[in-house]
């Protein structure tokens, strides 16, 4: 039995491929849903943190700090195994999506805040002097510029969310990693794990490369 037969066994690959594809589909659904929900939550948190009344600002800051401090795996296990004691029983998908969104929202809020704070004061003043309301200035002047600045860190965060979906396998979520470990058990061969790893890399490497390119371009423009 050589290395190829153990780690890249063509027969095992062929047999377990459909399982892995099912897992990949769930991973992508979970990742996309959590990224979008995290963006919405993050923008709302950033607005509350920057422009809300003082108590709301403090509350938001507290939320952001807590959810950036808690390990995602710990949060996920609390949501899935502890909330049922309060009568709240969430499916593995909803549990995983909630945990990912709560944490991603906290990071996204800080990214949006940094982007908004990077917009020169003159842009806010020109908007106000023209008679735009705060909301209009935000939607038409500030956010379009801020979002451009924060596309690299937002993409980075999206990459992290997709990677972290793998943690959902511990709450019996049949995602790519869970399917791979099951396929490995069935086939008594680690090939599915190697294939799963290759699939993660194939999806995320282009995004990682894209972020690097964007960061280079932004740095060049600033010079």
């Amino acid at each position, binding site marked *: 039995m050589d290395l190829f037969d153990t780690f890249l066994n063509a027969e095992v690959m062929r047999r377990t491929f459909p399982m892995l594809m099912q897992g990949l589909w769930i991973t992508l659904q979970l990742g996309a849903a959590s990224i979008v929900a995290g963006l919405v939550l993050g923008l709302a948190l950033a607005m509350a943190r920057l422009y809300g009344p003082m108590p709301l600002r403090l509350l938001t800051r507290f939320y952001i700090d807590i959810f950036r401090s808690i390990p995602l795996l710990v949060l996920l296990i609390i949501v899935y195994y502890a909330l049922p004691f309060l009568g709240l029983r969430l499916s593995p998908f909803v549990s995983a999506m909630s945990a990912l969104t709560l944490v991603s929202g906290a990071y996204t809020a800080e990214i949006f805040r940094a982007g908004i704070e990077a917009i*020169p004061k*003159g*842009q806010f*003043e*020109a908007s*106000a*002097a*023209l*008679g*735009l*309301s705060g909301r*209009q200035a935000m939607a*038409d*002047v500030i956010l*379009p*510029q801020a979002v*451009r600045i924060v596309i690299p860190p937002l993409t980075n965060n999206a990459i992290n969310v997709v990677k972290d979906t793998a943690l959902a396998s511990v709450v019996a979520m049949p995602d790519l990693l869970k399917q791979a470990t099951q396929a490995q058990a069935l086939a008594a061969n680690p090939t599915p794990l190697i294939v799963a790893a290759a699939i993660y890399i194939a999806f995320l490497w282009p995004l990682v490369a894209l972020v690097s390119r964007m960061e280079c371009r932004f740095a060049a423009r600033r010079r």
Partner: protein
Amino acid sequence: MAAFVSIRNLRKSYGSFEALKGIDLDVAKGEVVCIIGPSGSGKSTLIRCINKLESFSSDSEIRVDGIPVASGRALARVRAEVGMVFQSFNLFPHLTVRENVMLAPRRVRNTPRAEAARQADRLLDRVGIGNQAQKYPDHLSGGQQQRVAIARALAMEPQVMLFDEPTSSLDPEMVGEVLDVMRDLAHTGVTMIVVTHEMGFASQVADRVIFMDAGLIVEQGPPDQVLSNPQEPRTRDFLGAVLNH
């Protein structure tokens, strides 16, 4: 003539530093007022209070067309009547020149897109940049950007235009083109309050020149009086320093 902009006992402090120490000023409709004075004299702060980009002491009062400059809806009405041009242009870099001019009429006045675009092109023609409407601000010279900023402010059809050192960050060869646009504007009867270091412009265009120092109005009057025959020693010192450098 009734005052169109009326300022009473305007005070403003940054911590313990008093930037404005009780300014009283009336500007009539159609009047062109130039405010001169050394840097730190409070002249920019003064005009930034008129549309409340700066807050001011609660016992001060500013009215524009009778509307008190306060907050909420009244402030929105004042800002719609008051246009402002900044030293650093503050154009919106993510919008084209035409979109910069269209934004406020579209959002604040709900002007239909086609009409706002026609109006923008008319205003851009008027300030001499009709052929650059599709460009982004970054691709224009400083003088062109400032003329776009003037067109953008005019799009709201303001009753009063505030100019906060509009030529101070321009290369010398571009100062003239911006002053020409402002001169044309002065002849249309728009009320203008201009903070400037351009003594030539002040003497030719202003109905009244105001000299400020240390948060107070020191002297004011027609340009030939204030600029050629100042009464106050501080005005004489300042003009001497500015004109003989």
